[in-house]
């Protein structure tokens, strides 16, 4: 029994019905493609947004290809004082990304950058890490304090070799650090230069017996420093540990800029800048920094960079993308439900129309399964055609939606930029990269997902409606008068 042959005959002789089915399937499949593309693109946009709007105050400079900038800048008197000593390290031009933490013991430089940083194509970054490696010490984690750049806090149990003997470091010992500057892209890490520093150990933390670093703060346990957040949390924990274990005199050294003794909570807030209070402080200082940068190192801010007002304002961009994605997804979802119901209704009508045909076939001895196969072939044929067309439609429709989202988002950024000019609270914001993120990229995922989904939808709807067909009464083929 050549069911496919009869399916083709049906399709050939019933072009209108087939066209209606084709249209419905085309719309359904196109919506699916658009939904997947949209979500993929939004994911990219979010990656860019989160990569470039930081919850810490920061300004970023990009090294584009191998080009780099050399610049000098002065932040304030403390910076001036330290500039000579740290210029090579900090402002060598290899530095692409610098984090400044303010408020604690003055200005705190943290040579850190998250490993998971998302990079747009064509960009690469150069980092100097806060994790130093030396030939005689396996690993020392700490941060350079610009108030006292010659000191470092090391983990208890840090050691060096003297005449082949392992010697533990103690407070007051001198630590020779070779601090490399890395240039890193997605695949390679290259040491560009390396400087030797002599640092005095000013503190030791963490009992060495522990196999992993663990600190409990506010009922939360921090055990590793693998990700950016955890790194900061760990640093946070170390600082707390240092504060809590400090002598009364030492605690006095935990002063803020105004000479006020910080309690532990206040201290942590300042370090992490995740809370509102600290954010205000950081924003104020960031504003100073940006002004200084504009004066001394205008070139570091590339064309694509814009300065936004506050974290809240920047979040509006994230929210606008997010809400637009949600709205479009809801609209697509609703449309899909409508189309699905429409398709189910049309199929029901079409199949009802064919009850007599089913009866005739069965009176000739044809099985229901053979009939089902014929109908399935008819629908799969239409589906395949609709699927192919939908890939093109879906792509262009997606680019249209994404273009709308981009325009709306960029308009939002303009607003934020204006706000940023009126306030001292600023954070850096990258529009160029965001524009890049708003590009629609061809992906195999929408192709695959839409095919599987539409296939399932069609087969399930057809099977459901086929099983639902009632009244294939063979007696109807005979006269009803008797």
């Amino acid at each position, binding site marked *: *029994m*050549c069911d496919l042959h*009869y399916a083709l*005959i*049906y399709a050939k*002789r*019933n072009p209108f019905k087939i066209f209606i089915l084709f249209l419905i399937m085309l719309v359904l499949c196109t919506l699916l493609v658009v939904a997947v593309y949209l979500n993929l693109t939004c994911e990219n946009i979010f990656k860019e947004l989160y990569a470039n709007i930081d919850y810490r105050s920061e300004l970023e400079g990009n090294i584009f290809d191998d080009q780099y900038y050399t610049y000098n800048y002065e932040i304030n008197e403390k910076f001036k004082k330290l500039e000579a000593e740290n210029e090579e390290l900090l402002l060598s031009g290899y530095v692409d990304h610098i984090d400044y933490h303010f408020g604690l013991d003055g200005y705190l430089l943290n040579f850190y950058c998250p490993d998971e940083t998302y990079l747009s194509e064509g960009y690469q970054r150069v980092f100097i890490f806060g994790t130093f490696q030396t030939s005689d010490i396996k690993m020392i984690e700490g941060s350079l304090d610009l108030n006292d750049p010659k000191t470092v806090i090391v983990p208890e149990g840090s050691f060096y070799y003297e005449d082949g003997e392992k010697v533990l470091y103690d407070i007051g010992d001198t630590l020779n650090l070779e601090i490399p500057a890395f240039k890193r892209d997605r695949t390679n890490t290259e040491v560009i230069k390396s400087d030797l520093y002599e640092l005095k150990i000013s503190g030791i933390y963490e009992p060495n017996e522990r196999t992993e670093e663990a600190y409990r703060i506010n009922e939360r346990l921090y055990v590793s420093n693998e990700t950016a957040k955890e790194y900061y949390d760990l640093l946070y924990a170390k600082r707390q540990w240092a504060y809590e274990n400090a002598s009364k005199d030492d605690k006095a050294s935990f002063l803020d800029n105004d000479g006020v003794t910080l309690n532990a909570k206040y201290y942590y807030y300042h370090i992490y800048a995740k809370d509102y209070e600290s954010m205000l402080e950081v924003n104020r200082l960031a504003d100073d920094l940006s002004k200084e940068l504009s004066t001394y190192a205008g070139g570091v801010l590339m064309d694509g960079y814009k300065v936004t007002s506050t974290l809240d304002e920047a979040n509006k961009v994230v929210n606008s993308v997010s809400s637009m994605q949600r709205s479009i997804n809801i609209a697509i979802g609703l449309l899909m439900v409508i189309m699905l119901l429409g398709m189910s209704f049309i199929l029901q009508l079409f199949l009802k129309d064919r009850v*007599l*045909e089913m*009866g*005739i*076939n*069965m*009176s*000739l*001895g*044809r*099985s229901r399964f*053979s009939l089902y196969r014929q109908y399935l072939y008819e629908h799969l044929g239409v589906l395949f055609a609709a699927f192919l067309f939908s890939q093109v439609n879906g792509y262009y429709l997606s680019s249209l939606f994404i273009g709308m989202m981009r325009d709306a988002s960029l308009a939002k950024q303009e607003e934020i930029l204006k706000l940023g000019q009126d306030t001292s609270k600023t954070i850096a914001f990258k529009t160029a990269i965001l524009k890049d993120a708003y590009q629609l990229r061809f992906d195999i995922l929408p192709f695959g997902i839409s095919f599987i989904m539409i296939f399932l939808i069609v087969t399930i709807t057809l099977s459901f409606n086929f099983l639902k067909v009632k009244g294939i009464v*063979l*007696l109807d*083929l*005979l*006269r009803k*008068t*008797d």
Partner: protein
Amino acid sequence: MALLEVKNVSYYYQDGDNKREILKDTSAAFERGNFYTIVGESGSGKTTFLSLIGALDRPKSGEILLKGHNIYEDVKRYRQKDVGFVFQSYNLIPYMTAVENVSLALDIAHLSKKINIKGILAIVGITEDKTERVVTKLSGGEQQRVAIARAIAKSPTILLADEPTGNLDTDTSDFIVNIFNMLAHKMNMCIIMVTHNLEIAKRSDIVYRVDPKIKKLVKDNV
């Protein structure tokens, strides 16, 4: 042994609590090479009887045997190979051509497509130029001819016809009755036709009448 034996068949419609009896313990036998007609008043149960021997419905009691085997043992095969139907309203697949309608029946019966379908259509009076037309473009008489061609193409042993001439003019009716006679007498088929038309019934070999009182099939001398 008769080709088709109907033994003590009863049939009724259940309408709520009411049971409407149509056939009661009726029996009949049909042989190859005969043209049978079944006559009776409207609502007497002629078509019901035809639906039972065509395995389109099942009797409430009794049995119907084809060459000694109950036809309900393998209904699909019975419909595919042994029986052909000609309906009053033709019941052709409307989007198919005459050839495709006949070919469908052959396909379902797993018979070779080498059968000369156009030749069969020619026998029933469908000219070559009409064989590739979609059946809805044919006249009623032509559609009935195609339906007959579809029924006989697979060479069934029994041909069941339900008022096949009911919608047709006299000439076409004559033609169809002639064909049925030819099929019975030359092709050795068993033709069973339900009709209201006593003139047509007279032209058959054996006439059965459904007696509404006793609800049985009785031989009639028309």
